[in-house]
């Protein structure tokens, strides 16, 4: 082979390999993106059916129940506005607490119950998962906006 042919072969081979790799990477990437939804978004039907995603918020006080097998648990995640019931089979993380932030990864069933395959709590007493914080923060903002609107409405009605 002449040096010129060799170079062309090298470049062509490189391009083919790169194309294969890029396809491989992007396909895997596409099929593994996990989106995050707040309980409000799930309640509004924005979350995909039959595809796994993440939810987050606070664990509602007093909502944790244990099934008779001792391993399956059920609890309610709330962003203070809307709730979603979650089931999980397995051992919960150490810092999973009622009234504290949590993020769960799983699928939404036909019955509207979220079957979690993974539950993440924070690693530190002073730390809240950013997604969970955001979900609750958004709900608070909406609540504040609603209250302001209601007050404004009340003021306009009164006189």
């Amino acid at each position: 082979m002449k040096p010129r042919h060799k170079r062309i072969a090298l470049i062509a081979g490189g391009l083919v390999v790169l194309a294969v790799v890029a396809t491989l990477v992007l396909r895997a990437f596409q099929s593994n993106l996990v989106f995050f939804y707040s309980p409000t978004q799930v309640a509004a039907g924005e979350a995909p059916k039959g595809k796994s995603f993440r939810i987050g918020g606070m664990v509602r006080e007093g909502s944790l129940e244990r099934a008779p097998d001792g391993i399956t648990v059920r609890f309610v995640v709330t962003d203070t506005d809307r709730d979603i019931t979650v089931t999980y089979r397995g051992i919960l993380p150490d810092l999973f607490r009622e009234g504290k932030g949590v993020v769960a990864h799983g699928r939404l069933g036909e019955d509207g119950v979220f079957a979690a395959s993974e539950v993440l709590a924070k690693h530190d007493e002073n730390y809240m998962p950013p997604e969970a914080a955001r979900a609750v923060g958004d709900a608070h903002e909406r609540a504040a906006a609603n209250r302001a609107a209601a007050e404004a409405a009340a003021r306009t009605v009164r006189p």
Partner: protein
Amino acid sequence: MIPEIGNLALILAFCVALAQGFLPLAGAHRGRAAWTAFARPASRALALLVGVAFACLTSAFVDNDFSVLYVAQHSNTLLPLPYRIAAVWGGHEGSLLLWMLMLVVWTLAVAQFSRQLPEPMVARVLGVLGLVSAGFLLFILLTSNPFDRLLPAAEQGRDLNPLLQDPGLILHPPMLYMGYVGFSVAFSFAIAALLSGQLDAAWARWSRPWTTAAWVFLTLGIALGSWWAYYELGWGGWWFWDPVENASFMPWLIGTALVHSLAVTEKRGSFKNWTVLLAISAFSLSLLGTFLVRSGVLTSVHAFATDPRRGIFILLFLGTVIGSSLVLFAWRAPKVGLGGRFALLSRESLLLTNNVLLVVACSSVLLGTLYPLLIDALGLGKLSVGPPYFDAVFVPLMLPALFLIGVAPFANWKHARVDEIVRALRWAFIVAAAVGAAAPLLYGRWKPMVALGLLLAAWIVLSALFSVVRRVGATRGGRSFLATLGQQPRSFVGMHVAHLGVAAFVAGVTVVSGYQAEKDVRMEVGDTVGVGGYSFRFNGVREQQGPNYRALVGDFELIAEGRTVRKLFPEKRFYVSSAMPMTEAAIDSGPLGDVYVSLGEPIDKSRPDAAWAVRVYYKPLVDWIWGGCMIMAIGGIIALSDRRYRVRLRSGSTAPSSAGALARHT
């Protein structure tokens, strides 16, 4: 008083670092010997000042000085002394100071072990390191000062996060930082070479041992982190593709590519531009890792309380470092010669392929790590990239790289012949294939991926053996085999040892992912549960008091083939001061695998003496993963002790002739 001394030392250190950054660089540019001579004393002063600051912070922790905010946040009088010292790097500010300490230690080492280098080169390298130090010191002083006071002082500290109260934490961050920061030396050598325009084999030889040393530390640091996550987080996994893990893994991938490409640049003078780019990337990724971990943009064990100013500062710093080095590169690179030519099949081309694979693997990890952050920053929603993505991309990319590990040592520089390689390695391949086909049967079901993984592991081992035997045979000249073996150059031995480490790692990963078993079960006292040929009997739970926690200790009997092998005592700890629970798994480790039990929680919260949720695992060959990393690091250390580096240090003359080095290390 002591914290004020520390603070003053930091401020002085910043001034010295600025001077160390600018004066020697200007001196090297203008040819003023007096200015370049400033570099070494400045680096010593800098090391002393940062050392003083670090000692001050440590003493504040040892003395429980809760008038220092950082100490009050991360320590407690009940905390045992070793953890009080480790708590120095248990939070954001202190870990930055540790980072800084590592940086000045590396700088000092460069100043000390560079006597044979030309003076302007030393001045430039130390100058660049000075600028990096100045940037980090400014960051510490402006946004993360560990000496900030808390007035009035707290009565009691908030305590170190219990997750971090573990021997693994004492070692993991310093090792990891030594690795991260070590790449700043390779980076400085690359920048210095670009500034001077002398991008040659000598430059590659000088920066090689530093790069290998950084790589060794990073390897150990990552392995320790993985091991810590395995036994301390109680999830039983060894790698989660967590963004923080990725942040440390990306510099490792590029660092591995750099170690190999430096070899080519030293021996053959090729790949110079590529090597420089890798050196810049390795350090930039180390900085990016710091940004990801410390800015709090990630949900992880490592994310401390956030302060947006910190993220912005590191981002600016990162932008400055990457931007200015790439501009410099773009300006200088066209003037750099291409070096030795090589054929389509040659050791160069195989090493280039290895480099490309590693870089592509790193890019795909980078994509998966940064994309969610980008989407979030653009306000397009919250998402994450699942671990299956990384597995799906990473494994296929690494398979050819693993295969090439066996081939490359048999390929000649410049031009290699397929038929020679095939002849030398056909038996190695046949035996490896037989091992790969048969070995999975030892564990039960035959799985193609396990067979492939074990084939590759055996292939690497056999090809290394063949390579050593061939080389010893060619150089023995009548002496005994063992005597000749002992006289092989350390860099050659080190390379093969590191590759054997890769083989052990691959075998561990393959077998554990193919045959691990895991169960979450409810256990009454007296219950037995079986996993992977073992069974556990639960004998109940008792209370125990620790120094700063109280614990419920489970009592389990590990039973194999009807006999009790040993007892296992997993704990559930409740830390007094932070009110945090912690799971301490009990692990029976062995060369063939681990069995692992951890306590979940009592089924009925009010009756911890009755039934518990328990997690049991069987993890065959899992320790080979970390053992493999250890062997890789040992290989790196052996390569570091190679004669040409030692001769150079002792004689103090300018490096051994490159012809001699070439002859010894073909």
